[in-house]
């Protein structure tokens, strides 16, 4: 995992599998570590998420609230799974996050969680 103290460009965090109450505390900790390491701009890539619950939604909002204080930003790649995408729309995440088509930008840094 990246730990340098100044990161100007966006860090892509790729979630695979379940993003739920069981994994939430681990994901919180991982994102906190990145924020502490200086990351202020995130792309949360949920394309490969198979199960997303309210705790998973909270994981995303929490990192947004933290970096917003520091003029940071959080973009989001929606899950491929239609049902999971619907949950994000229900919670109006398309209004809270900037939705991007894909996180694949060459040269970008990437963390898999």
């Amino acid at each position, binding site marked *: 995992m990246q730990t340098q103290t100044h990161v100007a460009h966006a860090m892509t965090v790729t979630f695979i599998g379940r993003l739920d109450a069981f994994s939430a505390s681990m994901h919180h900790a991982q994102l906190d570590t990145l924020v502490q390491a200086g990351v202020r701009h995130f792309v949360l890539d949920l394309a490969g998420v198979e*199960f997303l*619950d309210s705790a998973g939604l909270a994981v995303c909002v929490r990192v947004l609230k933290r970096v917003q204080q520091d003029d940071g930003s959080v973009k989001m790649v929606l899950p491929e799974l239609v049902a999971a995408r619907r949950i994000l729309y229900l919670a109006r995440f398309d209004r809270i996050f900037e939705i991007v088509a894909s996180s694949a930008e060459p040269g970008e840094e990437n963390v898999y969680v």
Partner: protein
Amino acid sequence: MNTLHTNCEGDETLRLELPATLKYLNVVGACVAEMLAQVEDVADMATLSYTVQLGIHEICTNIVQHAYTQQQEHKRIAVTMEMRAQPRCLCVTLWDNGKHFEQSEVQEPLLDEGQVHGYGLFLVRNVMDEVTYSRQPEGNCWRLAKKL
């Protein structure tokens, strides 16, 4: 509202009783998925199955994280599931012996701001057709139903 749930404890009922810990909640989801897998002629079963699993899962995580926070022992969840006909629906009842739920203490999530908690019951109400909570002599009782 609560019309789907009448007489939901017949010979076709499936019961699951498990420790109220997050790690076992996948088992509940797997049971629901297998019960739904036998239902025919549903347009988008993958999405339906996901949302029903999510609704039940949210009630379970709330039981683990809110009803049983103060309690040290005897933390169990009992779940009954039944497929019903006319109208075709899945009826699910969840029981716990933890703290009572107080609807009056719950605030609707402020969706436009983003919430770090408070999405759970909001999602349940949105994905299920019936959601009721009641205190019973046997414990706290959540009844969910979804038309298929």
